[in-house]
C-alpha cells in the first residue's frame, strides 16, 4: 500500500512538473507570437536550435563549450585561492583571540565590499587580463569563506576540547584534531555560498573586461542584438551552476559522513 501511494506521488510529481514546464514554454511561445516580445526575443524552438548549434559553431572566438570551459578555468583558479586563504585566515581568527583582535578590524573594512565592486580597482591595479579576473573572483568568495570558517572555529564544543586535553592532546593536536574537524560543516557552507558568488563574479568580470567566456557571450548577445546568444548563455550558465552545486554537495556528503544520521 505504501508502495502504491509512493508511485502515485511520483507520477503526480512528474505530471505537474511537465505541466509546469509546458505552461512556461507555451507562455513564452505565445508572447513571441502575439506580442512585441517576439520582435526582440527568440521563440523556444529557435533558442533550442541555437543552443544545439552553439556546440559546433563558434560564437566569437569559441564554441559554447569553449566559452564555458574558459569561465570554469577562471572560477577554479580564483575560487581555489580564495578558499585556501579564506579557510586559513578564518581558522586563525576563530581559534586565536589574539589573531582575531589583530585581523578582524582590518578584515571588517573589506568584508562588506562585494567582489564585483573590486572590478574597477582591479583593472586600474593589474590592467585587463586573466589575473584581474582571478582577483575579482578571489575577492568575491574570500569574505564568505573567512566568515563561515571563523564561525565554525568559534563554535567548537569546549567540552570536546576538554575531553581531548584530559586524554593528553597538546595545543597543536587540539587544533588539528578538534577545531579543524568541527569546523568542516561550516567550511562546507562557506564553500557552497562562495562557489555561487564566484560563479557570479566571473560572469560580471567577463561582461566588463573579457573577450571570451560565458559572461562575454551574454553581453555580446545584447550588444550585437543577437538575443538568442544571450539565451543560450543563460541556459549554459544555469546548467553549469547546477552541476557545480551538485558536485560540491556530494563532496560534502562524503566528507561529513558523521553528520548524516543513519536510521
Amino acid at each position: 500500500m505504501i508502495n502504491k501511494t509512493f508511485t502515485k506521488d511520483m507520477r503526480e510529481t512528474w505530471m505537474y512538473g511537465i505541466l509546469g514546464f509546458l505552461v512556461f514554454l507555451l507562455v513564452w511561445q505565445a508572447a513571441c507570437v502575439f506580442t512585441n516580445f517576439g520582435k526582440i526575443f527568440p521563440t523556444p524552438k529557435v533558442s533550442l536550435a541555437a543552443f544545439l548549434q552553439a556546440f559546433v559553431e563558434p560564437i566569437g572566438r569559441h564554441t559554447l563549450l569553449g566559452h564555458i570551459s574558459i569561465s570554469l578555468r577562471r572560477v577554479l583558479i580564483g575560487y581555489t585561492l580564495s578558499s585556501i586563504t579564506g579557510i586559513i585566515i578564518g581558522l586563525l581568527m576563530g581559534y586565536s583571540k589574539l589573531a582575531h583582535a589583530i585581523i578582524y578590524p582590518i578584515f571588517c573594512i573589506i568584508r562588506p565590499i562585494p567582489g564585483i565592486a573590486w572590478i574597477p580597482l582591479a583593472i586600474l591595479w593589474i590592467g585587463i587580463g586573466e589575473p584581474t579576473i582571478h582577483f575579482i573572483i578571489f575577492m568575491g568568495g574570500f569574505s564568505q569563506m573567512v566568515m563561515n570558517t571563523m564561525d565554525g572555529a568559534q563554535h567548537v564544543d569546549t567540552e570536546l576540547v576538554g575531553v581531548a586535553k584530559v586524554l593528553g592532546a597538546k595545543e597543536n593536536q587540539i587544533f588539528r584534531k578538534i577545531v579543524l574537524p568541527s569546523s568542516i560543516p561550516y567550511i562546507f557552507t562557506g564553500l557552497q555560498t562562495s562557489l555561487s558568488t564566484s560563479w557570479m563574479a566571473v560572469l560580471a568580470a567577463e561582461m566588463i573586461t573579457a573577450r571570451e567566456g560565458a559572461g562575454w557571450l551574454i553581453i555580446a548577445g545584447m550588444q550585437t542584438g543577437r538575443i538568442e546568444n544571450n539565451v543560450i548563455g543563460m541556459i549554459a550558465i544555469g546548467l553549469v551552476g547546477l552541476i557545480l552545486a551538485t558536485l560540491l554537495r556530494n563532496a560534502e556528503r562524503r566528507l561529513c559522513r558523521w553528520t548524516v544520521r543513519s536510521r
Partner: protein
Amino acid sequence: MKEKTKYIIISIVSLISFILLWDLVSKSGIISAKKLPAPSKLFETFIYKLGNKNPDGNTLPIHIWTSLKEALIGFFFGIVIGVPLGISMAWFKKFDKFFSPLFDLIKPIPPVGWVPIMITFFGIGIMSKVSVIFIASFIPAVINSYSGIKQTREVHKWVSQTFGASNRQVLFTIAIPSAGPMIFTGARVALNGSWVSLVAAELIASTKGLGYMIQTARLVGRIDVVFVGVLVIGVFGAAMMEGLSFLERKLVKGGRRS
C-alpha cells in the same frame, strides 16, 4: 573582563597601524599614489565628492540615493512576492509540484546573468536594474521560506491531528511563525544579493549610481574616486544588513539561536 579590554586595545592599535602603514606606503611612494591613494587623500576626495559633480556627472549623495532606492525597491518586491510563493509551495503540494521544476531551472542562474536580457527589454534605466535585483532577492526568499516551512512540517501535522486545528490555523499560527528565523535568513541573503547585483548592473550599464560612479572614475583614471566609491558601497551594504538584523530582533523574539 580584563582580557576583553586587552583585546579591544590590540584591535584599536592594529587598525591604527594599518591606516598609518597605508599612509606611509602611499606617501613615501613605495606604492605610487596613482595606485594607492593615501587615506587622508581619500578623505579629502570624499568631502569633495559630497558636493561636486566631477568626474561622473553627479554628487556622491545622489549616487548613493539612486543605488539605495533601486536596491530597496527590487528587494521589497522580491520579498513580497518570493516569501508567499515559497510558503505556498511548501504548504500546498500541487503548488509545489507545479512550480518547483520551473524554479529549479532559474535558481542556478546568477542574477548578474539577467542583466543583458533586462537591458534588452527595458533599456538602460531603473526598470532593468530593479528587475535584476528583484530576481536576486526573489530566489533566496523563495528557497528559505520554502525550507523554513518544510522543516517543521511533521510537527505541524502532529499539532493539527492532536489539537484538531484546521489546516489554515496551523499555517498561520504555527508554521509561518516557526519558519520566521529561516525567512529572515532568506531576507538577509536576498538583501546581500540585491546589493551585489545592483553594483554589477550599474557597472555594466547605467547612468547613475555608485557602480556607475566607480566605473566612470576608472575610465578617467581617478583612482581616489574609485576607492571612495568602493568603500561607500561597503559601508552602505553593511548598514543595510545591520538594519535588517535590527528589524529581525524586533520581529522574531527569541527565534534565533545565538
